[in-house]
C-alpha cells in the first residue's frame, strides 16, 4: 500500500491549520492573555471530531483549524475535539 | 556471487576480464554517478575568497588560492575522482587496495602545495599514517589470497567465512581506515581541512567517505 | 548577446521541469525514472523558486524595485 493514500489527509490537515492561523489572527489581535474555552472553535473541533469517524480527511480539516490557531489559543478545544472523536469511535466502531 | 546478491538484490552487468571481474550493481552505479557528478562540479568551481579574522584586530582579510596552486590542486582533485571510480567499480581486492592507496596519495597531493605550516604538518602526519597503514592493507590481502587462492570478489563471495579470513578482513579494515583518513585518524584530517580552497578540500572528504562505503561492502563480501 | 537573468531562469525552470512531466506521460522504466527524479527535482524546485522570487508580489514592491538598485557587497 502506498503512502499517498494519506495525501488527502495530510493536505487537508495542512490547509486547515493554515486557515486556522489566518482566521485566529483576525479574531485576536491583542496579546495573549485569556485562557478560556471559546464557543466557535469548540463547535468546529466537535464537528471535526465527529467527521473523523465518518470521513477522516474532512475531519482533519476541521481539527486542523483548531490545532493551527494562534499559539496559545485552541488548546482545550483541540483536546475536547479529540476526546469527542475517541468517544464516538468507541461507540460506533467497537460496540 | 551470492553475497553480492544478498547485498544488492541484482547485478546490472559485469565485464569478464580474466580472473578479475569488474561488476556493476545498483549500489556501485549510484556511487559512480555520485563521484562523477561531484568531480565535475568540484573541478569547475573556482576557489572561494576565505575571510579571516584574528583576535585583537578589527579587520577582516580575504585570501584565496593562487592560480598556479589552484591548477595543481585541481589536477589532483580530478585524479582523486578517477581513483575513486576505480575503488568503487573494481571486482578484485588487490586492485581495491591499489586504488585506495592512490586515493591516499592524491589526498596528500591536494594539500602538498598549500603554503601553510600547520596544514603541511598535518599532511605530513597523514602521510606517515598512510605509509604505516599500507602494511596491514596489503598484508590483509596477502592473507586472503594465501587462504583462498583467489582475489576476485565474485569468487570470494561464495566462500564461507573462517578465522583466517576474519583476520585478513580486520587487517584490511585497519589499512583502509588509515589510507582513507577515516574515524580514528580523522584528527589529522580536521587539521588539514583548515586550508583554503573549498572544492579541493571537499574532494578529500568525499574520497574518504566513498572509500568507507565501499569498504563496508567489501568486508561483507569477503567471508 | 546577453540573455536577461529572469529569462534565463525561466528557460532553465522549464528545462528542468520538462523531464519530470515527460516521464509521467511516457511512463518511463524504473531506473530511468529514479534517475530523472533524483537529478531534476532539486534543480527544478530551485529554478521555480528563482522565478517565483523575481515576480513582484505587489504594485508597491514593484515601484520600490525600480527605485533601489542593490548591487551586492
Amino acid at each position, binding site marked *: 500500500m502506498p503512502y499517498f493514500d494519506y495525501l488527502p489527509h495530510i493536505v487537508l490537515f495542512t490547509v486547515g491549520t493554515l486557515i486556522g492561523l489566518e482566521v485566529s489572527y483576525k479574531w485576536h489581535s491583542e496579546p495573549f492573555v485569556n485562557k478560556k474555552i471559546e464557543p466557535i472553535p469548540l463547535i468546529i473541533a466537535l464537528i471535526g471530531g465527529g467527521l473523523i469517524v465518518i470521513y477522516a480527511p474532512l475531519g482533519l480539516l476541521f481539527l486542523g483549524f483548531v490545532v493551527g490557531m494562534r499559539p496559545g489559543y485552541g488548546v482545550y478545544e483541540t483536546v475536547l475535539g479529540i476526546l469527542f472523536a475517541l468517544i464516538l469511535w468507541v461507540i460506533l466502531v467497537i460496540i | 556471487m551470492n553475497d553480492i546478491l544478498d547485498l544488492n538484490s541484482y547485478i546490472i552487468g559485469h565485464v569478464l576480464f580474466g580472473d578479475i571481474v569488474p561488476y556493476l550493481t545498483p549500489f556501485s552505479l549510484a556511487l559512480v554517478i555520485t563521484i562523477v557528478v561531484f568531480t565535475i562540479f568540484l573541478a569547475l568551481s573556482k576557489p572561494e575568497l576565505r575571510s579571516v579574522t584574528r583576535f585583537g584586530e578589527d579587520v577582516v582579510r580575504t585570501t584565496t588560492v593562487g592560480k598556479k596552486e589552484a591548477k595543481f590542486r585541481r589536477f589532483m582533485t580530478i585524479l582523486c575522482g578517477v581513483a575513486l571510480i576505480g575503488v568503487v567499480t573494481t571486482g578484485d581486492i588487490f586492485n581495491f587496495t591499489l586504488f585506495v592507496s592512490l586515493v591516499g596519495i592524491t589526498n596528500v597531493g591536494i594539500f602538498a602545495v598549500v603554503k601553510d605550516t600547520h596544514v603541511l604538518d598535518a599532511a605530513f602526519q597523514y602521510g606517515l599514517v598512510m605509509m604505516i597503514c599500507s602494511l596491514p592493507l596489503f598484508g590483509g590481502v596477502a592473507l586472503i589470497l594465501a587462504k583462498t587462492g583467489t582475489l576476485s570478489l565474485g569468487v570470494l563471495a561464495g566462500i564461507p567465512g573462517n578465522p583466517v579470513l576474519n583476520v585478513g578482513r580486520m587487517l584490511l579494515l585497519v589499512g583502509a581506515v588509515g589510507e582513507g583518513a577515516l574515524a580514528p585518524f580523522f584528527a589529522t584530517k580536521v587539521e588539514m581541512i583548515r586550508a583554503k580552497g573549498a572544492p579541493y578540500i571537499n574532494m578529500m572528504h568525499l574520497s574518504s567517505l566513498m572509500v568507507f562505503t565501499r569498504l563496508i561492502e567489501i568486508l561483507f563480501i569477503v567471508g | 548577446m546577453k540573455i536577461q537573468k529572469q529569462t534565463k531562469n525561466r528557460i532553465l525552470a522549464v528545462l528542468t521541469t520538462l523531464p519530470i512531466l515527460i516521464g509521467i506521460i511516457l511512463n*518511463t522504466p524504473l531506473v530511468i525514472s529514479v534517475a530523472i527524479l533524483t537529478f531534476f527535482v532539486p534543480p527544478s524546485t530551485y529554478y521555480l523558486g528563482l522565478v517565483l522570487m523575481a515576480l513582484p508580489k505587489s504594485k508597491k514592491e514593484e515601484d520600490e524595485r525600480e527605485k533601489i538598485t542593490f548591487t*551586492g557587497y
Partner: protein
Amino acid sequence: MIYPAAGSMLYMLLELITAFLFGGLLLGLHRKIIARIQGRPGPPIVQHLIHTFKFYIKELTIPETSSMPLYVAIVLALSAVWVLAFLVGPVLLGPFSIIIMCYAVHKVSEHGIGLASGSPYTKMGSTRAVLSATAEMPLIVAPALVFFKTHTLVLSDIINYQILHGSLFMDLPLAAIATFILLLSKTPFNPFGIVWGKDIVSGYKTEHFGVIRGVMMFGEILGFFVLLWCFLTIFFGGIFNTPLTIMLTMIGVTIILGFICALTPMIAPYHSVMIQWIFALLALINVLFI
C-alpha cells in the same frame, strides 16, 4: 480509487510530495513539543512548512566570496541525495547500502556547504561536520549486525525476515539504540548538533538564505523522514509495516525526540563525538548475543 502503477513516475512523485508534507509537519510538531516543555506557547505545527515555502519567495543573494558553481550545486546535491534515499528506501525497498551511501554524501555536502561560502562561521560549522563524521560509526555497526543476523541488506528481504522471525529490536537492542542516537543527531536542536550550534551563529547554514535555503530545507525534511523510516523498518519491521502504522509510530518517535532535545543542553564538540562513539562501541557488544 485508481492507483498509478507501482514504480511509475507519478507514483514516486506522489510519494515524494506526501513524505515532504508529512516530514514538515513532523518537524513542526517537534518544535512545538520543545516549546511546550520549555513553557512557551511555541509556533504552530505548520510553521516548518511555512518556513520552507516562505524561503521560496525570498530574495536570494550569493556572497561575493563564495566558490561559485559549488555554492549552489552542493545544496542541490544535498536534496538530490535525500530524494534518491527516499526513492530507494520507502518507495522501492531496495538495497540498504545505497541509503548508507546517501548518508555519507549528505555528510560531504554539509561540509561543502560550509566551505563554499568563505565565511568563518560556515567554515567552523564544516570543520565540525568533518569532526562529527565520526557519527558514521553506528552506521557501519548497525548494518553489519543486521547483515550477520539476516544475511541480506535488501530492505524488502529484511522486512520479510522480521515478519517471519519477529522484529530485530529483540535481537539487536544495543544496535537499535546506537541507530536511535544517529537519528537524534540529525534532528534540529539536538544535543549532538554541533554543526549548526548557535555558538557559531548557524553553523554551516549561516550564509544560506533565500531560495537556496528552501531547497536545503526540502532535503532536510525528506532526510528526517527517511532516517525515521529506516530506524522503524530495520528494527521494528515485524510490527510496523503498513504506511498507517509507520506514520503513527513516526509521530510517537518524534514526540520522544522532542522530549530528548528539549531536556538536554548542547554538548561540546569533542564530548559529542565521544558520546556517539561510546554508543557505537556498546552496539558492538551486541555481537556477543547474535
